[in-house]
């Protein structure tokens, strides 16, 4: 057991956890932040993507203890006082989601992309998103949503 202290969605959190606790498990099972999803256990699907110190990472293959002291943003922390973030707004407007399961990871990946690249083209968006699997949308409306969001940010 060890203590980890993190700032999650702007709130300081400190918990004593088992050494083997994954970040996804800390978020979901201990802190009840169930917006972060686990879809594959092998870092392939990206449903579990969160931002650690601003960088998108797959939380299902990261020990919570390894990110002790970090600032974490999850999907729950993206909207501001009930107002959707431009990426969330663009996903809604462009029908960039269907079942919603991959969506949190997809949105968090896009948040990282758009922080570093202001106006990515289609291919850049598609290349960036290759670590996030969506089985519903065929990605086309996700790409449209990313471009739409980029134009508004």
């Amino acid at each position, binding site marked *: 057991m060890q203590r980890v202290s993190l700032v999650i969605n702007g709130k300081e959190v400190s918990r004593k956890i088992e050494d083997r606790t994954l970040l996804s498990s800390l978020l979901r099972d201990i802190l009840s932040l169930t917006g972060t999803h686990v879809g*594959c256990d*092998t870092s392939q699907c990206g449903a579990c993507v969160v931002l650690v110190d601003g960088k998108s990472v797959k939380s299902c293959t990261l020990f919570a203890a390894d990110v002790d002291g970090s600032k974490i943003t999850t999907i729950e922390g993206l*909207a501001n006082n009930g107002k959707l973030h431009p990426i969330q707004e663009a996903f809604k407007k462009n029908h960039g989601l269907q079942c919603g399961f991959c*969506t949190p990871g997809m949105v968090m990946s896009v948040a990282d992309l758009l922080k570093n690249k202001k106006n990515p083209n289609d291919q850049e968006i598609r290349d960036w998103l290759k670590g996030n*699997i969506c089985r519903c949308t065929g990605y086309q409306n996700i790409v449209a949503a990313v471009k739409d969001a980029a134009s508004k940010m």
Partner: protein
Amino acid sequence: MASLVGSRVERKEDKKFLTGKGRYTADINLANQAYAYFVRSPHARASISKVDVSKASNAPGVVRILTGDDLAKDKIGGLIAGWKIVSQDGTDMKVPAHPPLANNTVNYVGDHVAVVIAETLDQAREAADLVRVDYKVLKAVVKTSDALNSKPIHEGIDKNLCFDWGLGDKAKTDEAFSKAEKIIKIDLVNNRLIPNAMEPRASIGDYNPSSENLTLYTTNQNPHLTRLVLSAFCAIQPEHKFRVVAPDVGGGFGSKIYPYAEDAVIAWAAKKIERPVKWVAERTESFLSDCHGRDHITHAELAVKNDGKIVGLKVETIANLGGYASLFATVTPTYLYGPLVLGLYDIPVAFCNVKAVYTNTAPVDAYRGAGRPEATYMIERLVEKAAKEMGIDRAEFRNKNFISKFPHQQCLVHNIDSGDYSAHLNKALELSDYKNFENRRTESKSKGKLRGIGFCTYLEACGIAPSAVVMSIGAGVGLWESAEIRFNATGNVSVFTGTHSHGQGHDTTFAQIVSDKLGVPIENIDLVHGDTDKGPFGMGTYGSRSLAVGGTAITKACDKIIDKGKKVAAHMLEAKPDEIDFKAGEFIVKNSNKKKTIGEIAFACYLPGQYGEIKSPLPEGVEPGLKETAFYDPVNFSFPAGTHICEVEVDQDTGETKVVAYTAVDDFGTVINPMIVEGQVHGGVVQGIGQALYENAHYDESGQLITASYMDYTMPRANNLPELKIDYTSTPATSNPLGVKGCGEAGAIAAPPAVMNAVIDAIDTDISMPATSEKVCNALQENKKNNKEAA
């Protein structure tokens, strides 16, 4: 209020998903819950002499370990095959017992042997390693092609044959072939796929020993049917004391239409230990034990006249059912496949024979399209081949053979009410710039790439119906749908449906229909589904049925509301009911300005009286309240159709194949929400591209699933795909008042043959799905070698 039907209304359900507030089964945690982990067979086929749980039972945190023996002692029944198929010789299909925990044999890797329940998931997983199972490994039958020639894997099921089914007139078909001017033959494999909804399956059982109520939360497309099966066949709990909740569900694609062994075991275990029990599949468990899709071997022949007119079709298929017959497994390769082998062509005679076989692989069941993709792949590969061999343009060959008059009674089963197949073909030809394709081929060649084009014109049969007909051909249930419209006293509306939304956007589409119909603003309408304790019994979501059948039930319930509203309005406005018009949410006395809004009527229905006045707003004999239920049994299937055209580029050195252009023109009849329909087409097409180029469930000779993770099973990703061009034509369905036909599966049906026809056109060699770089590269090498030898 402007009409919402036909508008791109943004989805009501999106906000919760976009903010992490969706509530999927795995997100639910109950007080005092224990965790389950399944002990699964590592062998494809084995007999079990003993399951020793003594060491595991003493492991830290273990609450209980349950085995097949416990299940048998409690007389828990097995899972069922829901559709009885009768063989050509008149005998019933042969179905092995399918206990939710193995009795004494296991029949695929991942088959369920025992469940360990512990205080934490880690403890359950660790203790599962300590369960000692004495397996005697038996020779497994793995390949579809081996099943009929192998010793039975199930006692008493000779040749591993579940049924040998025929559809059509064999004698007349043989006669047509004997007179045919040309016969085109093809041999095909429809590759086995793993559905891979992004949300892994999960179940939570919760039993209240005092009230004796059992609740099962599960990842399911069809909660009412799941409850029925678990009650009536597994005998876990009487239906009236059993609630099945399918909350937000992260994709289904057919793989979540029915209860799985885990659902039965978790519900039973929770009742047994009187504590909530939670199970969530790891992804590899999903790969191993979710039902797979497709897996056909087919030989087909087309009899054609020299002018290109088709005169007959013969199809012989072996369909792999896997280790057991899953719920929809037997209807998928028969009634959802056989009638569709004709495609949208006017073929005078045909015969289709399907032999369904058992193998030691995961059970195969309905997967997006279910039977229709397999039929379409067959006929569209065959037609493309015929056009090529006969030197007729692929579009012209199809057009020549299209059904052109409606209604059209096909020679096998379907009576098609409406369509205009040349219309979508012509639109697709234009949109894809077909006439300039050869220029693009030349251009690709100059870059060292082989370019090909492939077509698929398809017919689909959705909204499977009517109940009396489907039950006459073996269905275990009728396939109607229910709806309830419940006005609240304050004028807003709860709509209950027996269908289930797991990505399709029913909350929005159905609300659009109700809003238009009743004149209630869409924000005042809420859809309720996925909970057997709330709405009336319904048949769930699959087969692109929800709008055609469920949407119609909603429409009918709205009509009843309007009828009652007219009676009440007439009484309140001192007129006769037939003098009342209903329009845009208002009941108006004809030729007057006297009116009541539907909100006022709802209020009057729930508060039928006033202080100080005796007169009721309700006419005599009219009950208070404003709530109506409708059960709708369709008169026929609906028949979407369309044309998809694909272009691929193949790298000659590496064999890497890329879809570089894709055009889809579909006729879904009336479209309620074009934005949602577009999304369904995109997703379906990409799943179809996945089948054609990337996806394949591969078992090795011993029956180990080699492709059991996303590291091994290739899913289409964003960077594998081009931007798809989507358009529509529309001939409204005549079989339902909305004119809708269904759109959920079209892409997955049309894309595989369109892509494969394009690949074959590019490399000029027959090749099977998936056309991976390795396979294409080998085919090109082989071509080169053959060409050299020929020279």
